[in-house]
């Protein structure tokens, strides 16, 4: 079925648009295959609002005269559009039928399943070209640039046809002394084939952060010699490594009943296991839903607000993510030990913790380029299933399937770090907000699909533009810079005391007056810094 067949009414005149904190506007509404376009032409000045249909999370319609008087004069309907970037819009559409047509088109077109029908495959801006390499870096390039890896580590192409681990990229970094056969056997022993691979090597002490999925020890405590050797090769003679298991000990025990498990002390003698409980999947998604609900209810008292904020548990997730990342850094940076991080599947909390740890301890990942490279390496190439996790956001009434705002949680944690160390990151909150928007609905192909294999099959790299590349264009990059950036080589240890963690107002109160004043403050900071730079 062609996309255009979903559109029964393409144009409606005299539509009234209501946005928070803006006067109502009248204009023309237009539905295309991928966009909702509202334009208001008044006098000379025209104003347009273009919304990607994919950005629409939920749509509510209320139609007057629904029964009895079809086509009655003056009948109209109101559509409330709730976007994945948390914006809420209201459209008053004259004509009931038009209203229903528009609503059903939006419903159909905002939930396309096929990747190649999505907008990034049609987005062709004149200033970008599809030629040239896609993305910022590859595993091989990263390896080549990271001299400290050359001695003990190698790039393995054992997964070049994605048969060993469907969710890993074609190339991964592993200990030099472990051959591909061992990797294949280790992969069979790990859920989804996600055998331990290198995530980060400390820039001065050479200790590493590895990540994987859980071992498949099962109820009868199976072992895998190769997996044990692989981990032994990681610590290479040093006396100790830490396994940070992102489940409680009890959960890890229970996982054995369903074929999963954990690294037992007797088999992995030089590894010490620490359990840290992290919520996952549905629980985190519901947190987001509750938080957004609490933020949009303006009527309640302070007590009710605090109770709703507490009840959402969102900040508790932020708290645990930052604490565990801090723990990882403490092991690597302070105590000089290597760490293996995993939960069950190794595609969500594992990536969250390993990437946060890098922000805390690695100065290179705190630059704009460094941060985007980190996201590319640790989230996109590492196989975070974006398409499943970000299918819906906080407003959707659809039954939850695989949704989970792991990536948004990462951005929130990074924001907390930035708030505590306003000079340490080269990028600003604007970058985080842009990413929070793009991950749910984008013109670019970066966040499409669930892993490299799918991206290859769909031809994402050949047929879409890369978000990160476009963000690094000099004229665009400037808006994402932190005017106060002053690089430091030290680890930036975030405080994880609850009183140090705050609601990310820039994100969750984005469309309120509150954000307006903050914007003015940001401009003021810029103008002071710019004035200063001119003087210097």
């Amino acid at each position, binding site marked *: 079925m062609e996309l255009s067949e979903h559109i029964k009414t393409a144009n409606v005149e005299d539509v009234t648009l209501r946005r928070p904190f803006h006067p109502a506007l009248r204009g023309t509404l237009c539905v295309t295959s991928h966009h909702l376009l509202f334009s208001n032409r008044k006098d000379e000045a025209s104003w347009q609002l273009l919304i990607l249909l994919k950005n629409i999370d939920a749509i509510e319609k209320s139609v007057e005269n629904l029964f009895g008087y079809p086509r009655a004069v003056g009948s109209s309907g109101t559509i409330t559009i709730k976007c994945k970037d948390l914006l809420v819009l209201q459209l008053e559409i004259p004509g009931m039928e038009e209203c229903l047509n528009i609503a059903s088109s939006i419903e159909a077109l905002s939930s396309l399943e096929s990747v190649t029908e999505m907008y990034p495959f049609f987005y062709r801006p004149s200033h970008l070209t599809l030629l040239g390499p896609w993305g910022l870096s590859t595993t091989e390039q990263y390896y080549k640039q990271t001299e400290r890896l050359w001695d003990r580590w190698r790039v393995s192409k054992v997964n070049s046809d994605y048969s060993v681990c469907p969710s890993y990229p074609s190339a991964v970094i592993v200990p030099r002394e472990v051959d591909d056969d061992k990797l294949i056997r280790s992969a069979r022993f790990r859920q989804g084939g996600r055998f331990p691979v290198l995530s980060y090597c400390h820039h001065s002490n050479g200790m590493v952060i590895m990540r994987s999925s859980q071992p498949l020890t099962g109820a009868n405590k199976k072992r895998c010699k190769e997996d044990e050797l692989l981990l032994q090769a990681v610590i290479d003679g040093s006396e100790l490594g830490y396994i940070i298991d992102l489940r409680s000990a009890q959960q890890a025990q229970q996982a054995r009943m369903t074929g999963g498990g954990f690294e037992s002390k007797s088999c992995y003698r030089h590894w010490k296991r620490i359990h840290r409980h992290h919520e996952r999947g549905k629980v985190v998604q519901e947190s987001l839903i509750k938080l957004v609900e609490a933020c949009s209810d303006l009527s*309640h008292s*302070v007590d009710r607000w605090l109770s709703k904020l507490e009840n959402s548990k969102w900040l508790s997730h932020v*708290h645990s993510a930052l604490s565990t990342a801090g723990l990882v850094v403490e092991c690597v940076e*302070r105590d000089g030990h290597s760490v293996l991080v995993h939960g069950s599947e190794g595609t969500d909390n594992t990536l969250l913790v390993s990437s946060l740890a890098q922000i805390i301890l690695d100065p290179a990942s705190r630059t704009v380029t460094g941060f985007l490279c980190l996201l590319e390496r640790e989230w996109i190439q590492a196989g975070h299933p974006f398409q499943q996790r970000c299918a819906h956001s906080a407003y959707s009434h659809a039954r939850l399937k695989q949704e989970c705002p792991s990536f948004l949680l990462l951005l929130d944690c990074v924001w907390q770090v930035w708030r505590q160390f306003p000079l340490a990151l080269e990028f600003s909150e604007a970058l985080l907000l842009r990413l929070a928007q793009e991950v749910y609905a984008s013109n670019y192909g970066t966040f499409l699909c669930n892993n490299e294999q799918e991206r290859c099959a769909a031809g994402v790299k050949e047929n879409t533009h890369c978000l990160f590349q476009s963000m690094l264009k000099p004229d665009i990059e400037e808006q994402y810079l932190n005017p106060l950036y002053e690089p430091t080589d030290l680890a930036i*240890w975030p405080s*994880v005391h609850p009183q*140090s963690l705050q609601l990310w107002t820039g994100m969750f109160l984005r469309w309120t*007056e509150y954000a307006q004043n903050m914007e*003015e403050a940001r401009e003021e900071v810029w103008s002071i810094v710019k004035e200063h730079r001119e003087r210097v």
Partner: protein
Amino acid sequence: MEHIRTPKVENVRMIVSPRKSTVGTLYLSSTHTIFVENSEALKETWVLHSLVYNVERLPTNSSGSPLIIRCKNFHVYRLLIPQEKDCLDVLACLTRLSRPEHYGELFCFSFNPNLDKELREKAWGFIDLKAEFSRMGIPRNLWQVTAANHEYRLSDTYPSELFVPKSASPAVIVGSAKFRSRGRLPVLCYFHRDTSASICRSSQPLSGFSARSSEDEQMLQAIMKSNPLSEFMYVVDTRPKLNAMANRAAGKGYENEDNYTNIKLQFIGIENIHVMRNSQQKLIDVGELAAPSMSDFLWGLENSGWLKHIKAVLDAGVFIAKAVAEEGVSVLVHCSDGWDRTAQACSVASVLLDPYYRTIKGLMVLIEKDWVSFGHKFSHRYAHLDGDPKEVSPVMDQFLECMWQLMQQFPCAFEFNERFLIQLHTHIYSCQYGNFIGNCQKERRDLRLQERTHSLWPHLWENRAEYTNPLYRTDHSQTQGVLKPLTTAYCFKFWKGMYGCAEKSVASYQSSADCLNAVREESQQLEEELSAHQERLAQLEERKTSGERKKTNKLSEHVRRPIPTESELSSPQDYFTTPRSEKNTPSFTLQLQLATPHKNGDPDDLSTGSDFESGVADLSSYSSSGGDDTKDPDSDEVVKANA
């Protein structure tokens, strides 16, 4: 001095966090407790006795006797004293010295910052309330100063000079005063030039169930008429209606709308001082929690009710400001006595209405006017003397917090910064300066404070660079006109800089404000240098000498880096002590704690390690980011005073 049995204790351990502590010597002077670190830096921590809220001794254990000193500015010092006897001595001494019984014992009477008499007198004239009333632009044909309270005959808790409507006759003034608690009749507090509406204040009327006073009714009428454009006025009773009604049984209460023509009565519902005292205590407990979970913290915050009370105070201010600025209607504000909630409501409204009060000098003026002169009972509320604990209440704390909450919402609107508010807060409790001693103007006059003590304001003014918000610009939209804050629940935040004592000592953060201030300062310097060079260049060019041009290119070499780098980094947190955490990891925690000192002790440690340690060592110099400097900022003067 007679209370000090042990002036010096050696090998005392100050516990900064579960992981960090320092050993040093503890000294007790007649005014301060001083802790001097044994380290090379000899870092000193000064704690004023009058700032001590309580001292608690925990049971002696193998390592010594723990002593906890809690301060009125929410700092907490945890000491470990080797000998139990010394600990008991220090405890007894501090307990006595922190609870003076007479005004004469207060620190302000011995504090002597080497100013001559003339300077001291001039300093007391720094804030001039007469000038302030004329700044408001009060029309002389509508309002006048009355001498009715000369020698405090009418009300002993009011200032001697009062602004009243010109149309109010002496009989009306006296009659109205008789009908109000403590004679605190309705008088002008703030005049809004743009609308000619005013804010007046008073105490509750002695109306009981049926009493009335025609003079008081005429007084309100006169106030309303002083605003020629309006047809009615608001009477804002800042108490919850239930409390106001209960007061009627005691012959007090609120205005009967049937007796007063053209008034609209509005209750706001700010709770009384006892509720606020308990609420703050709960909040302090929340701030002190050692390793709470997110839920513990948020639940504790909610349970304290503190932010709800802050919102009520701000709501009162917003209501009044709206009435005055948008409706152009005058407002009479009162509570019971008219010196706590009334002061809060009037001063918050004034800050919202008048950009002047959002400047450093303006806030000083406002506090001097609405709080000091109108008889806010500083000595009672902030327990300057050992007295009735039921009189103590954080009224001023709430006002300062309202300012802070507003600053969060309007980052560019205030000339002063958080540090200024915290400094004010400390000095309201510290008794180091005479400004806040006593409970009313009359008492301060009788104590001859201007002759015997010093004024805080000039001292703060001299150091204003430290208290300036870098984002403040007089021509910014947020500094213009009336502030209209949101009072949605999510706008109210826990004031970490004030109450977060569990965190103060552990972590120190980079401060964007400090960085911006440095940047601004540097810009200014460069500007000056530039203009100096340009001048010079012009002169030289006049003389037609060339070759001097490169001077301007050299400018950048003069630039000192304004931004602190290493020192502002915080130390690692207790990522190990998760609240309600797994019980399966104790062995690990132990392991690491053993490992850490080993690493620290190793001089050939990895370079990052030592870098990192130096980052921690330097923390002291940057710990003041939230105004939480452990060293008393006035210690230099104090040393002189003691010498």
